[in-house]
């Protein structure tokens, strides 16, 4: 049935692979780092934790250079259309590497990881593995590649979540993450198989052209879209695919929680944007729903329910990590708003919001680590009276939370402003979406401000020492993130230019 390729064809394939490898350097470099980390974990016996974290820190920083080199190679389609390099992908590559660097810094300071486990050897290996997966997610343009890279991220994340394996909650979190993850990726694969059956193609731009030229059955396409959305929705943690996130965020070690809530979510959004903008056809006018384009309606439902559910349920939370979990569900809703707009302004707003989310969420989790190291608690009640005793942590936490609410003069305010103004510029039904966004932001003010309230205005029940000292490194990183949050809240032009520069998907005229 199938003929074997001739010698000349094999030669041509090898040539393509060789030329493609040049464009694949960041990923190759990260894979090499992955191997180096495994080897140094095996070779070195003493002072391993320090060494491995420093190696991964420098290694990840080095990969930024390789990603920077890719700016001159954009517009390339490599490995037979499996993979592309465009500004959009490069933006996300920076994003993932930076968040991994912050995670490594946070892990170095976390007592939870360094004291309570037998060793953190594999920990950094898995973090780097997750970064490789996420970097590939942002660039892949083939269903197969999307699936493989997404599974790479998931598999590493399952293990990282359960890394504190002697602790009940960490173990339980990893089981819950695993079960939900396995089910949703199963659904996604089934959706992919239906989409393949409809078109006979696995490349997303070819899928789109076949769907448009040959026509399709809207119901079948809808079923496939919903199943694929289940897989991606699970990654971004939007309602109704959010069930795992509060438990997993609470149980996982705090640095892992931060990585999951920022980087893994952003990877999901990268995939969502690329897949739905390119593969699934949508009408010329996004306001009118042509058959098959109902996925925009689906995203609207997802976004509105996420904003309402996340913000309302967060009101009752007493654990800081759980509170941030619900807040991250709500933020998934806000980011989805930017995606729904489906024009240049909307995508720019989405990317900007992701950067601001990186700063403020990592900052909040970093303060949570610092406080958990000192008090051994993540309960909001135990934050009482800490503002005076840990001045930097208190001030920084307040800034990050103000930014998460979306009040000036922080970067979170600019992010929300950009998303809402993109919605308003579009008009019609989008204005109502913006209204829901504004109203739910008001609700969020209450539960975010509960933390500074406890820190500054309420006195703790147990006697605490007058000043609580924390290490040099966490203080530096916290202060840096706080200053950046404030700085970009006022001088946001470089970031928004960066985001606008990144709004180019490979070879597709979207707008």
């Amino acid at each position, binding site marked *: 049935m199938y003929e074997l390729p001739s010698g000349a064809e094999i030669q041509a394939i090898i040539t393509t692979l060789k030329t493609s490898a040049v464009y694949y350097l960041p990923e190759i470099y990260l894979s090499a780092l992955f191997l180096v980390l495994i080897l140094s974990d095996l070779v070195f016996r003493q002072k391993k934790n320090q060494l491995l974290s420093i190696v991964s820190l420098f290694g990840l920083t080095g990969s930024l250079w390789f990603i920077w080199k890719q700016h001159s190679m954009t517009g390339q389609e490599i490995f037979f259309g499996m993979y592309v390099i465009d500004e959009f992908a490069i933006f996300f590559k920076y994003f993932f590497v930076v968040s991994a660097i912050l995670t490594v810094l946070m892990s170095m300071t976390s007592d939870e990881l360094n004291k309570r486990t037998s060793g953190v050897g594999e920990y950094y290996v898995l973090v780097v593995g997750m970064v490789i997966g996420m970097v590939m997610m942002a660039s892949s343009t083939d269903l197969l590649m999307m699936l*493989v890279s997404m*599974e790479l991220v998931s598999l590493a994340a399952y293990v990282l979540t359960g890394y504190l394996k002697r602790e009940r909650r960490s173990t339980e*979190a990893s089981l819950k993450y695993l079960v939900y993850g396995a089910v949703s990726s199963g659904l996604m694969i089934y959706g992919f198989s239906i989409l393949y059956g409809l078109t006979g193609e696995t490349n997303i731009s070819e899928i789109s052209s076949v769907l448009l030229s040959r026509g399709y059955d809207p119901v079948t396409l809808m079923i496939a879209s919903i199943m694929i959305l289940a897989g991606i929705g699970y990654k971004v943690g939007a309602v109704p695919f959010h069930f795992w996130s509060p438990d997993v965020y609470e149980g996982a070690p705090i640095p892992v929680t931060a990585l999951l809530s920022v980087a893994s979510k952003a990877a999901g959004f990268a995939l969502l944007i690329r897949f739905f903008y390119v593969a699934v056809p949508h009408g010329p006018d996004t306001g009118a729903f042509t058959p098959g384009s109902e996925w925009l309606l689906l995203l609207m439902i997802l976004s509105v329910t996420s904003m309402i559910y996340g913000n309302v349920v967060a009101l009752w939370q*007493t654990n800081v990590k759980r509170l941030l979990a619900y807040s991250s569900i709500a933020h998934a809703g806000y980011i989805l708003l930017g995606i729904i707009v489906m024009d240049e302004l909307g995508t720019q707003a989405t990317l900007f919001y992701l950067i601001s989310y990186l700063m403020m969420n990592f900052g909040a989790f970093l303060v949570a680590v610092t406080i958990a190291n000192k008090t051994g608690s993540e309960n909001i009640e135990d934050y009482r009276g800490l503002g005076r005793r840990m001045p930097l942590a208190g001030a920084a936490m307040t800034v990050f939370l103000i930014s998460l609410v979306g009040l000036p003069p922080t970067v979170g305010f600019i992010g929300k402003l950009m998303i809402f103004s993109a919605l308003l510029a579009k008009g019609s039904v989008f204005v109502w979406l913006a209204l829901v966004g504004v109203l739910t932001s008001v609700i969020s003010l209450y539960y975010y401000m509960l933390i500074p309230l406890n820190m500054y205005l309420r006195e703790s029940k147990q006697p605490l020492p007058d000043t609580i000292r924390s290490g040099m490194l966490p203080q530096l990183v916290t202060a840096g993130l706080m200053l950046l949050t404030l700085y970009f809240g006022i001088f946001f032009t470089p970031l928004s230019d960066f985001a606008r520069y990144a709004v180019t998907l490979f070879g597709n005229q979207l707008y």
Partner: protein
Amino acid sequence: MDVLFTIGLDHYLVISAILFGLGLFAILTRKNAIVVLMGVELILNAANINLLAFSKYNGGMEGVMFSLFVIVLAAAEAAIALAIVINIYKTFNTVDVSSIDSLKE
């Protein structure tokens, strides 16, 4: 009667849909973590049948490649899943999903 005796694309799709349904049923009703994971395997295999059938009738090789990758991913996932389940059993002395609920309000 002709439909029953000549195997066509529909036959494969029906089998795959039945497998998918059984897998989903197992996931939704069973409490045992291992059985839930078996349900996931059923869904993955349903997708594999779909891919192979479409590949046969569409005439491309992509579906075959895809299903090979799905098999490998299923194996990798099973390895990690079983490790986590063993860890769960060591900590909780049970693999019943409904009784593992220490993370709650």
